């Protein structure tokens, strides 16, 4: 009995020690500020990874002494947003990670709060999207794909993420440019990247649209063919034209950025913009972006605010065409 108890306490101790080691971080220089990051999504997703990478880089660059990350997940960020707007009002040294997905979710869910209520700090990263087909597909180029779409959109099922998300939006934009009515599209939404990918590898759909990073390894291995990417210009090491080069006048970045709460002072806002800009220009940030297939598309302050307004209008229009707004 004693042995068993001893065994139990020692395992518990190992567990506890492990946990403590993981969560204990030595305090850094005292003059650097403490910040709070609000993530309107559950741990693990894109915004959460962005927040944790921001935290990591800020700390390794000694720009902050520490940070606290709060996750309030749900409904594309529209559960967390009201909380950030109401409960975090006026808090300096705090920011929320959000992005294009939230713009779409606010419109589609007819949410009570929107991004005009928070203080834009900076756009940080973007993931351009990729249009791919299975290796055996008859489509060799993006033009082939568009031609088939024009001939009969119902015969070209396209896999992607949830309805109204960035993948669906890009499909809508491509169809719009090609003059195909959005209502006739055959879009097959999948819950996670893995499921959409397996539908493509199993040859169950004609094409797929998702963030380039979801497909990059399959493309390198030759299991998928990359027809085009939605970036603004050709990318190093990616052997595919942009949609624009392929004759489809569409450009789309699934962007992510940070916002301060409403009602922060001008000084706090300026300090936050400076902090984020310094971080985004650091080498450590560049390395993280490279590892994660994020394109750095830094845009700060008022320019960012203007961009958010324009993007909201663009996304609103295409969601209306797709019957989602």
């Amino acid at each position, binding site marked *: 009995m004693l042995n068993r108890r001893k065994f139990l306490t020692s*395992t518990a101790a*190992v567990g506890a020690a492990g946990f403590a080691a993981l969560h204990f971080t030595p305090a850094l220089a005292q003059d650097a500020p403490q910040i709070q990051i609000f993530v309107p999504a*559950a741990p693990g997703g894109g915004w*959460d990874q962005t927040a944790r990478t921001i935290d990591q880089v800020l700390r390794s660059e000694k720009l902050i002494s520490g940070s606290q990350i709060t996750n309030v997940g749900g409904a594309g960020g529209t559960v967390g947003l009201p909380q950030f707007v109401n409960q975090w009002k006026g808090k300096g040294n705090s920011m929320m990670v959000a992005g294009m997905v939230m713009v779409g979710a606010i419109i589609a869910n007819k949410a009570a709060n929107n991004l005009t209520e928070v203080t834009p700090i900076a756009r940080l990263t973007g993931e351009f999207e990729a249009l791919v087909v299975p290796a055996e597909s008859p489509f060799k180029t993006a033009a082939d794909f568009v031609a088939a779409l024009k001939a009969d959109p119902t015969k070209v099922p396209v896999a992607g993420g*949830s*309805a109204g998300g960035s993948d669906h939006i890009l499909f809508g934009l491509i169809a719009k440019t090609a003059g195909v009515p959005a209502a006739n599209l055959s879009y097959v939404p999948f*819950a996670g990247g893995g499921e959409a990918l397996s539908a493509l590898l199993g040859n169950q759909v004609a094409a797929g649209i998702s963030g380039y990073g979801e497909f990059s390894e*399959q493309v390198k291995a030759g299991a998928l063919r990359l027809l085009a990417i939605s970036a603004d210009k050709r990318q190093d090491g990616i052997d595919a034209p942009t949609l624009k080069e392929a004759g489809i006048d569409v450009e789309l970045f699934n962007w992510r950025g940070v916002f301060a709460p409403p009602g922060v002072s001008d000084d706090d806002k300026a300090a936050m913009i400076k902090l984020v800009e310094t971080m985004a220009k650091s080498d450590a940030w560049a390395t993280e972006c490279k590892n994660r297939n994020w394109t750095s598309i830094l845009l700060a302050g008022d320019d960012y605010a203007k961009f958010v307004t324009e993007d909201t209008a663009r996304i609103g229009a295409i969601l209306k065409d797709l019957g989602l707004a």
Partner: protein
Amino acid sequence: MDTLSHLAHGFAVAFTPTNLLWCLVGTTLGTAIGVLPGLGPALTIALLLPITYQVAPEASFILFAGIYYGAMYGGSTTSILLNTPGESATIVTALEGNRMARSGRGGAALATSAIGSFVAGTLGTMGVAFLAPTVVKYALKFGPAEYFSLMVLAFITVSAVLGSSSVRGLTSLFVGFVIGMIGVDLQTGQPRFTFGTAELLDGVDVIIVAVGLFAVGETLYMASRRYAGKDEIVPLKGSLYMTAAEWARSWKPWLRGAAIGFPIGAMPAGGAEIPTFLSYAIEKKLSKHKEEFGTVGAIEGVAGPEAANNASAAGVLVPMLTLGLPTSATAAIMLSAFQSYGINPGPLLLTAQANLVWGLIASLFIANVILVVLNLPLIGLWVRLLKIPAPQLYAGILVFATVGTYGISQSPIDLAILYLLGAAGFLMRRFDFPTAPVIIGMILGPLAETQFRRAMTIENGDWTVFFRHPLSLTLLTLAFVGLVGPHIWAWIEHKRTRGPEHVPGDA
């Protein structure tokens, strides 16, 4: 033979003292979070992601794999003892496991689930090591049409858990469908049954429903009967662990559970819940002790599903390691951990990162051993929980269920749902409606719906697709045979024996 030398190399990686320690930490942590409803392996690994900045890739993946397997072991403990499933994959375990605990065989239920998990986990891991490339080829053949047909087959087989009255069972099943539909519809982006509540847009977590109906409902029911009933503590009957008869009844369900769980886990949309339902239904059909199901608790009904969920946990790793396909929340987060090391998980992972992958697979074998060694001695401690007098025990369950639910998303709305469902569970018990079909309906209903609509979108509304695809046709035929087979068989038997007219019962 190539595989064996890779595996040997993997063990060399995993057997370093540091990596063994990480494995131990991971399995211990995993068991703990498996016990808590709400805290799942996906969330835990997500919270631990920052350690990828500090330690070597091998060490962090060994830690994550330990958490992943550990959670599968731990989840069954609370299902059996407290009727409070810690993970969605252990919901079925509660059905027979908790009955066994209440008839004094809690130790045996825990033992069969721990040893069954070990057996199936080891078989599953061997499957990952030796069969992965073959299995994944077949798994990819499963498209929406095949999944829908698989769901049809699942619906037919799980009718076994509907209980004695089909009308009541089906009522519960449809209640589950409705709960499962709450939230934004994936196919169209439209909210359903959300009544303008933003918190409901993502749907209701199946764990909350299971804990509400099983644990809270049960607690309310016990409380309501306190005046009439007498306070009894069930004494432990027989050996603490399994008797020879229980071993004999367990080993076949373990193997069958592993055989069902691994391939379904390897399918991109397979999941861990469906194999547990199927295993339970099959064990109930094959058991020589049918009368124990739903009464005193049948050990087969614990052994099979527990083996199935561990084998499916191994199966999930197949598409992840061979193709870089994340098919569960946990796998997705593990893949994002690969990325923070600058490793892009894809079809070349197995060759480009052989050290890492084989070290991971070897550590899975070790994790299984550690887990069974960790869990068997704990049984003696766990069963003492059952010696707590009912009022205190049920109060504890209520606290545990509340804290666990709040832990899922820190949302008060979730707590309201928990207690509403608890009240519903109480009424269902009071009026003799089975609660398990609600959970089954909630999991299978939306899956079947989604796959059906996907198949229709892809085929432009041509429903013959379900008969044109050979795999789909096979599954539908199996379902059809399962549905009418027993009736035809009974009719033939009846003709042959010319026995007295069958009196239709209420079943």
